[in-house]
């Protein structure tokens, strides 16, 4: 089988999209999962594979502002898209308020669901900056966590809504 890492491997396509604010050209097979292409070609390994079938949300990324499971997106679908991954959430020096709250209030334990969970929370807060707990629960329903029982994740997000209470 040809190696898709070669720029002109037969059967591969070039897809142009913006990833974390940078213009990228991704070359891969059209049905390659966005998850694999981002991890392997752009080394964005903050995106995790937990189940490979869209159940766990560990591979969550933002696609044109919407949270999606990147394990279910073939790269042929992302031509011209704007993609944000966990790597695009913090600036070089400054964590996002949600990331800071996850550290302060115990929102992360083993950390494997955390990138997807943080992205889901950031995505929620950008649409609704003061969600209620039921709204938070609904927004995270596609992101599974086996460690925390979710309580400290809810608390982290609620605290993140009130910046003054988040300690650094």
């Amino acid at each position: 089988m040809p190696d898709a890492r070669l720029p002109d491997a037969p059967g591969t396509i070039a897809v142009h999209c913006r990833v974390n604010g940078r213009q990228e050209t991704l070359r891969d097979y059209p049905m390659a999962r966005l998850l694999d292409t981002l991890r392997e070609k752009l080394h964005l390994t903050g995106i995790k594979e937990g189940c490979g079938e869209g159940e766990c949300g560990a591979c969550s990324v933002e696609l044109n502002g919407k949270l999606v499971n990147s394990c279910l997106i073939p790269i042929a679908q992302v031509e011209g898209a704007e993609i944000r991954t966990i790597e695009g959430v913090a600036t070089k020096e400054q964590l996002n308020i949600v990331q800071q709250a996850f550290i302060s209030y115990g929102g992360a334990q083993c950390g494997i669901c955390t990138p997807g969970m943080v992205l889901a929370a950031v995505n929620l807060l950008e649409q609704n900056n003061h969600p209620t707990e039921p709204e938070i629960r609904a927004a995270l329903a596609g992101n599974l966590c086996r460690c925390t029982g979710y309580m400290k994740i809810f608390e982290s997000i609620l605290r993140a809504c009130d910046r003054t209470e988040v300690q650094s």
Partner: protein
Amino acid sequence: MRHPIIGESVPRKEGREKVTGKALYTDDVTFPNSLYGVTVRSPIARGKIRAIHFNPTIPWHEFVVVTAKDIPGKNCIALLEDDQPCLAADVVNHPEEPIVLLAHKDKYLAEEARRAVRIDIDPLPAIFTMEDSLACKEVIWRKDNIFKSLSVDKGEVDAAWASADKIVEGEYETGAQEQLYIEPQGMIATANPSEGVTVWGSLQCPYYVHKALSAIFGLPKEKIRVVQLETGGGFGGKEEYPSMIAAHAALLAWKSGKPVKIIYDRAEDMVATTKRHPSRTRHRTAVTRDGKLLAMDIDFTLDGGAYLTLSPVVLSRGTIHAAGPYNCPNVRIRSRVVATNMPPHGAFRGFGAPQSVFALERHLDQVAKAVALAPDEFRRRNFIRKGQTLAVGQVVHEEIDMSELLERALKLSDYRAKRDRFARENPTQTIKRGIGFASFLHGAGFTGSGEEYLASVADVEATPEGRVRVYAASTEMGQGTNTIFSQIAADALGLDYADIEVMQPDTAQVPNSGPTVASRTCMIVGKLVETAAIGIKESLQRHNFLQERYDRQAFVAACRRYHDEVGPLRATSRYSPPPNIHWDEHLYRGDAYGAYGWAVYVAEVSVDTATYETRVEDFVAVQEVGRVINPVLAAGQVEGGVAQGIGFALYEKVVWQEGRMINNQMTNYIMPTSMDLPPIRVHFEELPYTRGPAGAKGIGELPLDGTAPAIINAIENATGICIRRIPMTPEDLMAALDATREKAIA
């Protein structure tokens, strides 16, 4: 004054890497020129391997192929006994048993090739139930299918039946449960005869993997190196099985001369790796009419699967916890773990105790009912007190007052008022409400003389700059090892949290502080860290480089001076058992654990009798675990454990067919989501334990023990239906409710 660091919720050490996605898990690490390994497994439960066919559509010359013949040392996963092969050679004993390993640089082609290998097996009769195993329908393990049996005897059970006012019997079952860490298992290996074998991976117990690799390669210990990478959850599931994957990756690396990575996908992880042991418990209990326990006769059976693995130890913990925190003069426990042709069951948080505690706490509600006492009053009359003896003959020396713990839990949950209100309102409601609880204990650390046998070691080092480093094989897998070790060392040395660094578990660098299991990391290894840290301070003071009272600056100066005038500064601490602790492994009597966690959990449920949906509406968890080192981490342990317990009780059903899990996907094996959980309200009672670091005991497993029985007790309170088997799915509830209705009509 320095800020006290024990009891403070300092932020998780590796928190920043985790929230930014920078933390590197096994699949995130790539070596140049590496190959991807896959595993070809047995399609059936039991049989003789006749032939292995390689479909010619695959370019096999590009592949590295490993079978049992390629193993340079002993073909076994060395653990308690050497019965489990690393690769099946002649026979298979369970579905999905590994037989052939393949590696290729293209992971997609490797997967295609896996499906192009056909293994012909002449089937042999297999057994899939504990009953068939006990009846020796087929003998699949030595002479009687019994991996291990245990007996606990206190008093004279048979003499008590005659004087009993009531005798209550019951049988209870728990199903297999998948650990379902969100990061599937994975390993990377390099291996060659000159440099030996090195593996990096997702694992709980570096020295278990180390021991297994040493046997498989026939190499001396110093030729094996095991490094833990960031581990995305374990819960026991990465206790023993990583040895298997490490061996497979290393065998492929050995033969190919290239680094090999094996990452299981979710389906393979669920179908092939260990789960919680299914259990069946029979209780026969004698009580007086005023509700005093006279005798408990307990029969406890676990399904161990096809190989022994850790089953005897799981049986041990389940057996010792089977009689709970109660004072009963006569107790008999007979237990055994049996062989079946299922994949071996293994470690899962709680390790046998959630199974036997479920049975006991369900049963005691039945006993209370038989003597017309409220469940809380019945327990109050029988709780163990200081100075009394547990079933194994251990005298309780802790200052625990279970009645007080119970009272606090009942108040926090508004138990009495709710019980009254639900009893009033339920008869006219389609959605019935109920409230129930469980009271229980969980021993921390290895059982009996286990810790003495392990003789764990931890080191603390101070650099010339006054940086303090902790060296231990205890792994961080989300529970907070890095953070609490840092807090303990900082407290012992009077330094800041930021001054402490916990080193990566790497067997070339860290001593063997034992496996990261059994709620032992904080209490046992934390104590070693504390002692070693004090050793650093004492070394500095012995040389008069440091005064009795000092500040951080003085500590840094003293470290510099020590390095200049004496040399490297490192202190070692080795476990020594507390005085006056005795355990008789033969009689199964004595001090089973150095200390226990004690708890009362209250669950409130709603049961929709039209849709058969059960929801946990509120949950109160009150526990005594000694001094709490980090309240946010400790509460996080309880909340996460309760969530897993809710899954164990209501959702997580492994469906078996001919010994194989057939719902091995997150789509049809259902764990709790953010929509499913009630508020989990966690409260600590703190009685400092003198032999724990800063007074702490263990906590990790405790929450799995009491959650499920509290929920099922609440369901009985809501519906009057006695559920004896978990998980209780809506289908099970429907069957039970329909049976009751039919009975009422008849």
